[in-house]
């Protein structure tokens, strides 16, 4: 339908009006991560939507071709930048599979990867819930949840040296062992987070204003979720119980007892509720992992993969050479290709990697969960009100850094 084509307006419109183009973004407070939506609205109603991504393109895949396998970790931090550890882990697993060392990663390193990954999943969900609540005017909730996120990030900062861009994982393990009092601190943080989240839960879940904006809005069916490749909380909100941690277990996830929450209607509220429950399940995993954390090394004992300890580097020629070759030439990954996938904050985070046997990737392609999830917006937004864009977009939780790379 063209603009101004008043004669063809549907009959149910009480007051006929002309269609109007409306831009949301790319610079708009509710367009997290810079995205543009070109809408055609009729009054308050959305007729068509064209979601335009690409404003946060950083050439991740091209940059990766010019970096050693290890130098790519800082780039992965900047994919989904509210859960960098999950990206670190997903990328490391892909390279390790191609190297054929995925079964030789020390157990303690695998537990630590689970712990930092689940902390990142919690911070990811907290950010999504907090920002969406704020955009619906629940500012107090924003502060309660951001406070919780900050406690978790402070802990990761203590561990990795960086609040957000951790680059903590390495091919073959993690760069350093947990700090001495990490587990007691994490237990304390989890206790405080639970209280914060309970408060937020109380303020939102039975809040009439909040429910009116969420219930029955942006419905996605289970079939659509499969058809559009939706994963993560968005896919699960439709009743599609797909979680890579359960369906294709990696690391030591098969040893933990946790549930995969699913929704029934596939609306915004289901996506909210699934995220809230997933935070609780992640906390369950964290507690089990801390209880069963084994002792031992945190990095593989292989001079062709892991940097030797500095003491050895400065005092023996063997380790000096290994250090030099790993830094200057990079890890030599045998020629081949692999697709490896993990459960990221927003769903299936996949890395498709091709090596030509040099010290750098020939191709490093990311399958970002956000990309598929964002694509469905064009389908679910038409028919909604302009005001529904904000909670619907918020619950899809597109992260530009990951979607655009």
């Amino acid at each position: 339908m063209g603009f101004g084509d008043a004669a063809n307006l549907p009959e149910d419109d009480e007051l006929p009006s002309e269609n109007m183009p409306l831009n949301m973004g790319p610079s708009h407070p509710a367009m997290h991560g810079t995205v543009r939506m070109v809408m055609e609205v009729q009054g308050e109603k959305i007729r068509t939507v064209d979601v335009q991504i690409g404003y946060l393109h950083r050439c991740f895949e091209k940059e990766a071709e010019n970096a050693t396998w290890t130098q790519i970790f800082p780039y992965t931090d900047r994919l989904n930048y509210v859960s960098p550890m999950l990206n670190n882990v997903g990328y490391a697993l892909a390279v390790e599979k191609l190297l054929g060392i995925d079964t030789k990663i020390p157990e303690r390193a695998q537990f630590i990867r689970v712990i930092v990954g689940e902390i990142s999943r919690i911070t990811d969900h907290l950010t999504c819930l907090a920002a969406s609540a704020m955009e619906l005017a629940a500012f107090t909730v924003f502060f309660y949840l951001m406070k919780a996120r900050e406690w978790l990030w402070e802990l990761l900062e203590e561990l990795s040296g960086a609040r957000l861009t951790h680059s903590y994982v390495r091919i073959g393990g993690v760069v350093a062992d947990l700090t001495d009092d990490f587990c007691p601190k994490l237990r304390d943080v989890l206790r405080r987070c639970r209280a914060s989240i309970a408060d937020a839960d109380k303020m939102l879940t039975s809040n009439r204003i909040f429910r009116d904006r969420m219930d029955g809005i942006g419905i996605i069916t289970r079939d659509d979720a499969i058809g559009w490749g939706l994963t993560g909380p968005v896919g699960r909100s439709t009743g599609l119980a797909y979680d890579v941690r359960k369906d294709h277990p990696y690391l030591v996830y098969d040893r933990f007892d946790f549930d995969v929450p699913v929704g029934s209607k596939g609306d915004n509220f289901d996506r909210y509720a699934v995220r809230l429950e997933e935070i609780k399940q992640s906390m369950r995993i964290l507690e089990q992992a801390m209880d069963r954390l084994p002792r031992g090394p945190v990095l593989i004992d292989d001079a062709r993969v892991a940097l030797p300890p500095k003491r050895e580097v400065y005092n023996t020629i063997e380790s000096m050479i290994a250090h030099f070759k790993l830094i200057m030439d990079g890890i030599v990954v045998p020629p081949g290709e692999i697709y490896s996938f993990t459960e990221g904050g927003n769903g299936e985070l996949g890395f498709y990697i091709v090596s030509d046997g040099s010290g750098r990737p020939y191709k490093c392609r990311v399958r970002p969960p956000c990309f598929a999830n964002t694509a469905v917006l064009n389908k679910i937004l038409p028919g909604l009100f302009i005001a529904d864009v904000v909670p619907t977009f918020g619950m899809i939780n597109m992260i530009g850094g990951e979607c655009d790379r």
Partner: protein
Amino acid sequence: MAGANPAPPAKLKVVIDGQVHEFSPGLTVLEACQQVGAKVPFFCWHPGLSAPAVCRQCLVEIKGISKPIPSCYTPVADKMEVITNSPKVLDVRRQMLEFTLLNHPIDCPICDKAGECMLQKHYFDWDARVARNDGGKVHKAKVVDLGRHIVLDQERCILCSRCIRVCNEVARQPDLVMAFRGDHQLLTTAPGQRLDNPYSLNTVDVCPVGALTAKDFRFSMRAWELLASPSVCPGCATGCNIEIHAACGAIRRLVPRPNPAVNKYWMCDDGRMTYKRVHEARFVAPTIAGATSSWDAAVAEAARLLAAVPPSTLGVVLSAQMTNETLFAFSRLAAEQLHTERVYLAGAGEGWADDILVSADKNPNTTGAKLISGLSLRTATDLKQDLENGALTALLIVGEVDGVSFDLPLVVLASHQGPTASAAKVALPFAMWAEVDGSFTNRQGKVQRLHAALAPAGQSRPGWEIASRLARALGGVWAYENAKQVFSEMRDKVTLMSGADWGKPEMPVQLRFANSRG
């Protein structure tokens, strides 16, 4: 004796790692392994030198012989079964590397060879174990001034003897020797002697570690930062194939590029230093009567000067230092636009020579100049005579002419500041051999390609391009856009060059991406 003629040598059937291959007799096991892609590491073996089998790194198993055998020293034989990757062989390799590393200093961060070091590469590929030695290391002299170009670090030396064989077999001057035994063994010169043969820098190339370093390159640039461009040495008529290693807009070193038909694996020390001239006192902007001008004004003024002279008294002086393309373009300019037959060939003159690589003719392209211009070229002596007897009233000089003073109108193409450029009415800066795509024809008549490793200095331009601009200013219709077009036309017109090939375009390669060439 008709029946006694030996039959053509039969192919030998050799099993390498379970696969049957056929080889000609005379090949060593190591060469056979290399031909079929079986990886065997080595330090002391070099394709251009004899094999002493001292490093024991290339040991392989041969069925029927109980001990591992050095493959570089063993000729292939019919029905031989070679194993290059059995646990025993891998173990022996690791043990040999452990021995070699036992007293090796922890120098990688300050070592010039780091990044292109064979010891680093072999350790990483074949050993990659942590040190078991917690005792001290044997210390030797760190800075031994061996000769004009070379500094030796005796600690880093792994005693492979490659450098000794370069002196003995390539330079034919036995300057280096091993002294003492066991872990006291070291590389040195005889008392009072120095490593001063004309091929001494080849020892640095063949050194698998950073023991021998060139004074000229030492500590100047990390090897993996260098960009390598294939080229040809401009030092003499031999035309040794080289790689230009440049970084940050400057040439850092020249190294030989193997070519069995010209220079094998080597080049002389003088040739390696020719790059210095590229960065010395360059003439970088066009001038008219000594004042800097624009290219357009300078070319117009040069054309006006040249057109005003009667062709019979106008001389064109070419240089055998120029590329074929520049020489061809200026020959064409002289014939078609300037209509003069007074074309002279100048250049660098003669110098010392030997029967190894160095030619007496110190120009890289005398053969090319003669092929392009036929036999009509006049010599530098003719030029002197003609200047003295007043047969010339103006000159177009491409390059530099030594020992002649000029007081007649000159148009000069200059690469360097100097008397010729200063004396010129119009001086035009031209790009040197390392800055242009082009070709030289060596003393054997081989046309060999140069690839630009650097951008031309200042405003200088390739010679053939300047010839085209002059020709257009003089009314010619010339349309060369790149050196390849000049080359193609030259190949069509110069009968003796008809077989020459321009080859593929080559971009400079960063040595880091050449994957540790050690």
